[in-house]
């Protein structure tokens, strides 16, 4: 069984991260139905209820850029679903990697490093976001929710927004040692208010100044603006660049902190 020479070898960093993604995919293949339901079909239900149902009571006007409410809300529903998936995938599953399932601990006993494990998790979340965004986008076609092929870009905006929310949460999860009580609080007091107030269902111009400030700093508002901009228009190129830069900055800052805390937690 054992030879004098081990067959194990060190693989390159990107390859190592990709091998983690392979592992996640092995798991996903067993559970994809329930996953795709919660991450891809749930926003479709929202689209039906808010876009078609509630939207039938809303008249197209200046606030919706002269569009039907369905078309106005469709890109933002994709982006705000990405926020939920991004935060969801970056909290309990990540804490579990350290604490319950301990798969990060298992993986770093192999030639893999904590940085590669972090990278693998990051790529996996990005793929999940893109997949569920694409599933939503395709179904929304049948609702007549899209104006043009800018919808494809909205999927990417969703992924970017989701990632910008995921990396700081991964950093937080890596520094969480209890059962993750704080994640519930973040969902209740940050994610839900963000979903309701950061321009998903109505323009933030309707908000009092204090809440508008909250919307301005929230990644979701920037994602919503960018998502509408790429398909509905009405947002200047410079503003879009600004939204993009803001999301990218949060993503990078979160990734930098997350990678650091992964090392700190796994190399002790």
């Amino acid at each position, binding site marked *: 069984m054992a030879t004098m020479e081990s*067959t*194990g070898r060190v693989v390159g960093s990107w390859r190592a991260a990709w091998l983690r993604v392979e592992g996640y995919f092995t798991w996903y293949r067993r559970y994809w139905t329930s996953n795709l339901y919660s991450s891809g079909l749930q926003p479709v239900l929202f689209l039906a209820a808010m876009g078609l149902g509630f939207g039938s009571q809303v008249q197209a006007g200046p606030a919706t850029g002269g569009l039907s409410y369905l078309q106005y809300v469709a890109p933002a529903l994709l982006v705000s679903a990405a926020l939920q998936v991004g935060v969801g995938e970056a909290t309990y599953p990540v804490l579990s990697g350290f604490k319950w399932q301990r798969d990060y601990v298992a993986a770093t006993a192999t030639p893999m490093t904590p940085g590669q494990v972090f990278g693998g998790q990051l790529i996996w979340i990005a793929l999940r976001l893109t997949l569920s965004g694409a599933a939503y986008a395709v179904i929304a076609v049948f609702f007549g929710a899209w104006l043009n092929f800018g919808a494809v870009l909205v999927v990417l905006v969703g992924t970017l927004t989701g990632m910008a929310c995921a990396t700081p949460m991964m950093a937080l999860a890596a520094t969480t040692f209890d059962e993750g009580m704080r994640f519930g609080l973040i969902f209740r007091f940050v994610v839900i208010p963000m979903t309701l107030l950061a321009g998903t269902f109505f323009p933030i111009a309707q908000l009092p100044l204090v809440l508008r400030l909250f919307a301005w700093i929230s990644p979701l508002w920037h994602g919503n603006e960018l998502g509408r901009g790429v398909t509905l228009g009405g947002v200047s190129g410079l503003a879009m660049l600004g939204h993009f830069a803001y999301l990218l900055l949060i993503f990078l800052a979160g990734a930098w902190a997350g990678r650091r805390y992964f090392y700190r937690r796994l190399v002790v």
Partner: protein
Amino acid sequence: MVQAKALVKRFGDFEAVRGVDVEVRRGEAFGFLGPNGAGKSSTMRMIASVSPRTDGDLRVLGMDPDVEGPKIRARLGVVPQQDNLDNELTVRQNLQVYGRYFGLSRAHVRRKAEELMEFAQLTDRADDEVEPLSGGMKRRLTIARSLVNDPELLLLDEPTTGLDPQARHLLWDRLFRLKANGVTLIITTHYMDEAEQLCDRLVVMDNGRIVAEGSPAALIAKHSTREVLELRFAPGEQTSSSLKVEDLAERVEILPDRVLLYTHAGEAALEQVTARGIHPVSSLVRRSSLEDVFLRLTGRALTD
């Protein structure tokens, strides 16, 4: 395979390992024996190249873990104290996914998984999820997984803690086979019988330090007598009765529930005890074990 000199591990103010020297040679089964908190696992994690040392010198497979951790880990097998299998994957998938982390091809891990499931007697459960498996099966799968890269050095941290006797014996049998195949084993345990069964050589650790080193037999010969007479007394009588038999043995240990008389002839000592009109509730003559060595060296019983 492993050389450690004055190895130290500190966590903040707490010094878990306080200057440990060990050398493990190719092909041997080496043990770290000691109670919980003795520093065994910390030492093990440093050897596994997942925990940087605070001080001292360490070489694993001739390399410095601080510099070439991934290269070392590529050639190690690790069985952690706490199972960390993927409970939502099947037995086979656990082996295949993990094998890929060592840069092994798909075809290779497919073959290897078959071979390892055979070895771990899990072929019947190959395509079952891990979650419902028994503790012993999970432990065997963890060991099978640690062998996926044909490691030159296998690290087992408390391999049989929490298993029933039957599962333990099956596991020991598998470890003997590995040893026969030339795999170097390093085992931490707080079970005496496990250390006596499996280890060619071991160190006894207490409070972050090595207090003795040698083969199980040599340690017993050096630190204990050939036999031990164990006496149990009725509640309240232990103190007075033990005073009367102290001179019958080379050494006496008084534990909360029994008195141990270290002697080269246990039966003879027992006859003398009864001749003095002392009648313990029960008595037992047995051979000395590593437990006695530990008691002698640290003044404490090993298991709480």
